């Protein structure tokens, strides 16, 4: 029902909004643990983020790269976040895609597992999502897992899970 004009208008809305979010993030960095920005200034819809593993977790010491892909109708719909290379975590799919309620569009939960307020709304943004991801790294939610094998490991054999994560962190850092 929307013509080409509208699609272009949407993209320009997304670009303008992302410009502002980028400016805000640079002016007020997130506790120095997260940096994020567009891969190139020509395409605001592709971002890269670097996240430091939170202290006191097996992810401590690691720096993880993730790709943020924004839809043309952002911020009406959420972006997707993919860790590249993938990260071992109960809420991250084996292909690296992050599964977190704040990144779910409000309409696609037929089981009503999450209440509407926990999911995406246009007033959310890169900053609030990345903060949620940080706390997700610290406290995995095995109730609605993405990587089932990893969930089982996390639940049944915490020591082995933490060992594997540390192993992965070391490999990533090239130690």
């Amino acid at each position: 029902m929307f013509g080409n004009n509208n699609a272009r208008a949407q993209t320009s809305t997304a670009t303008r909004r992302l410009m502002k979010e980028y400016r805000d993030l640079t002016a007020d960095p997130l506790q120095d643990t997260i940096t994020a920005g567009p891969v190139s200034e020509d395409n605001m819809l592709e971002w890269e983020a670097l996240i430091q593993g939170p202290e006191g977790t097996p992810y401590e010491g690691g720096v993880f790269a993730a790709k943020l892909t924004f839809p043309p109708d952002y911020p009406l719909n959420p972006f997707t976040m993919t860790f590249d290379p993938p990260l071992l975590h109960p809420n991250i799919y084996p292909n690296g895609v992050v599964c977190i309620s704040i990144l779910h569009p409000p309409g696609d939960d037929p089981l009503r597992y999450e209440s509407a307020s926990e999911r995406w709304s246009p007033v959310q943004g890169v900053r609030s999502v990345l903060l949620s991801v940080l706390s997700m790294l610290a406290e995995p939610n095995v109730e609605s897992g993405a990587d089932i094998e990893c969930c089982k490991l996390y639940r049944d054999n915490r020591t082995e899970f933490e060992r594997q994560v540390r192993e992965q962190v070391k490999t990533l850092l090239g130690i």
Partner: protein
Amino acid sequence: MSSDDEANDIYYDDDDYGDDFDGQAGSAEDESMSEPDAEGYDVLSPSIDDLPQKKPYDVTYKVRTVQEIMDMQNREVQKIHALLDIPTSTAAILLRHHVWNSEKLQEAYFTDPEQTLLDAGLSPPSSPSPVKRTRSQHTVPFECPICCMDFTKEQVEDLTLTMGCGHRFCRTCWTEYISGKIRDEGESARIQCMGEACKRIVRPELVDELVPGELSKKYHNLLNAAYVADSPSLRWCPHPGCEHVIECHQVPPRMLNQLVPTVKCDCGRFLCFGCGYAGNHRPVLCKIVKMWEKKCADDSETANWLQANTKECTKCQSTIEKNGGCNHMTCKKCKWEFCWVCMGPWSEHGTSWYQCNRFDEKSGIDARDTQAKSRASLERYLHYFTRYANHDQSAKLDAVFYTTTENRMKAMQTQGLSWIETVFMRNAVDTIIAARITLKYSYAMAFYLVRNNDTEIFESNQTDLEMAVENLSHQLETNPEPDILMKMKQDITNLSAYVKKRSDILLDDVLTGYFEGRWKFTVTV
């Protein structure tokens, strides 16, 4: 007889309703006669309307149009508007929040009006009106937090909006957001403010103002749908393309173990008011038809079959179907040797090769008992299922049956009969289809019935109807010589009348039986 009277008391106490209903039925008939469908005749004509008298187990109902549904909502809203002295749109939102229960709403409102308004997502009357508040804020330029567009002091009034909760966004973002909610998520009464965790409800006037006409139409349709879904006395006609709503006040859920509230929509098709089933599932109760269809659809019977026809290797638990040979089994997988009869290890059988002499031992007897029971239950299920499926299939072929019948009616017209003289053929087909549907569900019923004298009567009624249907069906398919055409017409008309009669007898017996509590089921209803 006494319980019969009681049933009459319950179902005829509302005379006004009965009169209204008759009027409605009359007009429905007129309509269908003035609008014959493409094939030249209206769909299934035998119906409860055609029965000479309304039976005690029939329910009174009205078929409503969407307009009438809207009027019903408006009346409720006007009542609350007058009573609580609040604007109509506020009254509507409050009513929706209280699932159209106006007593509960009044109680809540009289106890604590402010809280009631807040709970429903409205601004309390004591807070400054949205208009005033916006004026005071216009001293600074504004940036929409969603699209990051800048608005000058002068533009804020015209191009941005807040619902009085302090969350301000530009009109474009509001439109996009509300459109998305309606178009993609099918939301209507529960569209909230975009502000984080803000529960303020978007008013219908605002929706109409912001979204394009087509979507606002969809929004109002969704509001109607929500109203119907919230009212226990309303139900949409489930047939595709039909927009009617059935209103019926006689069927609270607790009555559904005594009543099969089949109703006929103005679109000419049947539905069950109790469970929303798109068809006439009489004589069987809503709960049982659901159980039966689930049983037929899922693979519980596969498991039953496995149980009846296979045994597990006692060592590795592989499932084995014995398709010949002696009782000395050797499991292909684990090479374990055992006896098929007593399931014990073969080594204990000593020298009695190929013959188990341990047949009378307790463990063997138990194993065989379970096996036999399971086999009998599977056979019983299949008995009813084949008959059910057979009638289901025949009834589904009705479209084909109609076409062939129509061709034969045309052929008869070349043999000197007028169209009106051949209509009996079509009526016979209608009768057969209706009777087959009744028969179909009667088998689902029979499967769950406990065997007793009443069941015997039920089954002999079923047999009679079955025979009558097959006779008529046979008669319809034979091509008569032209000279005995009139005799054939006579025969078919008679047989049709007989089928109808048998069908009525079966339904009568079963449905009055529910009131009398005569039927005992193997499951709880």
